[in-house]
């Protein structure tokens, strides 16, 4: 079982155990991780579940598809090369941890 570690804007971290097949967004909702709003519930329609995947983990997941990449144009915080929508990342289940940074804002 992979622990997803959410680094929050206030400098604290939250660790939530992912179930197999869950997206990072679902893990955040399940663990009540604030700052990942996920208003559309994972339909890739709202761009309010923006996260920065920590560099060491970027290679573990497939890159954003065209739809996600286009939606990332609309995120409220700065878009960076490691910006992703948490609803589009399935947590890899062959690692112990998976780390993301939660941006300052989603609106």
């Amino acid at each position: 079982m992979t622990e997803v570690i959410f680094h929050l804007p206030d400098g604290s971290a939250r660790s939530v155990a992912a179930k197999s097949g869950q997206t990072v967004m679902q893990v955040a909702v399940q663990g009540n991780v604030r700052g990942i709003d996920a208003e559309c519930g994972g339909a890739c329609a709202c761009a309010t579940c923006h996260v920065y995947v920590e560099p060491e983990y970027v290679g573990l997941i497939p890159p954003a598809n065209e739809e996600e990449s286009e939606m990332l144009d609309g995120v409220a915080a700065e878009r960076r090369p490691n910006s992703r929508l948490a609803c589009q990342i399935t947590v890899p289940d062959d690692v112990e941890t998976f780390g993301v940074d939660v941006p300052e804002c989603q609106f």
Partner: protein
Amino acid sequence: MGKGTLVIGASHAGVQCASALRDAGYAERIILVGEDDALPYHRPPLSKTFICAKVSEEDIELKSHAFYTDEQVELRRGLRADFICREARTVTLSNGETLEYDNLVLATGSRPRLWRKGEMPGNVHVLRTLADARQIVRTLKATDGTVAIVGGGYVGLELAATVRTQFGRDVVIIEASGRLLSRSASPLLSDWVARQHVLAGSRLLLNTPMVGFETSDGVVDAVVLDGQPDVKASVVILGLGIVPNEELALQAGIRCADGIMVDEFCRTDDPCVYAIGDCTRFSVAQVDRMVRLECVQNAHDQARTVAATIAGNPTPYRPVPWFWSDQMGSKLQTVGFLDNAVSSITHGDIENGKGSFFHFDSEKNLCAAETVNNPAIHMQIRRAMAAGKKLEQQRFEHEGKLDLKV
């Protein structure tokens, strides 16, 4: 400690209100009362991924149990609010319990418009709740034959798409007006959507008012039409629009007019009572009418507005309405108001599945944009509109030069 905030209605608006109040640092008591027995859930997947079992009940929860516990939001499920006493600032629930409030937020939502006096033979359904969705799935599994969708709005069409493509059923879409999505899409998008449904093999009957049902042993077997042969159907799903749940407010003497009337801070005419979401009606600068916005965006944005008002940091709500729909493998997104559209420009190759319709008002400024599989454009316009930026028609005249970045 005061009596805190009592929120009636525990769906998108109510839950977001509780969440936004805590985000705003509100430390008083929050009680959230909802009629549904389920943990509050996202409604949009009900017509799409939920009924074809691509997502589970847990997947569509708005918030997990941890939210209600950690944030000290007292969620009271399976209870209806029956009576508001504004003098005593209390609400009486269906179990007889009376709750006190300092602030009352009505997030009572809406309900599907029923056929005539609620006449609902067996295998005729509406879709609003998780229980409705489960019932539709049970009926689809227990029957074969044609599924009739009455009403060509978004809920009906999403169901039509799911039933046709995921359940492989014959589908007939029956619409009283001359086009699909007549209240919520431009004729350009209506036509495109209609073609997709026809291409998928669904039958489309426009300008076709329904008259009633044929039944045998209390179960539907046809939809009766005006001046046309009956449509045989083993399942009928009604998508006839929604009715705002304003009765609780009306009974308390709060001003309503097909929706609970609120101002730009989501205040009703009682200073202690607010209303948010589908149940509200309000004026907006962009159009010359009082609007009800039946979408998730409005529920969430009004929830944040009311939370800011209650938390002492009032900020007026200036809506940029947007919504999305997933049908036949395409993502449709709309932003803005279509009311004042007098001209349109099309970009991209919509027939091949990716493009945009831009709509302009008489002053040649963009008032709405509808995109098909074009989320980047949708997002850029949403951001520009939210920033109050005017987008002149001339910027859209040369497709290759379009740059909307704010």
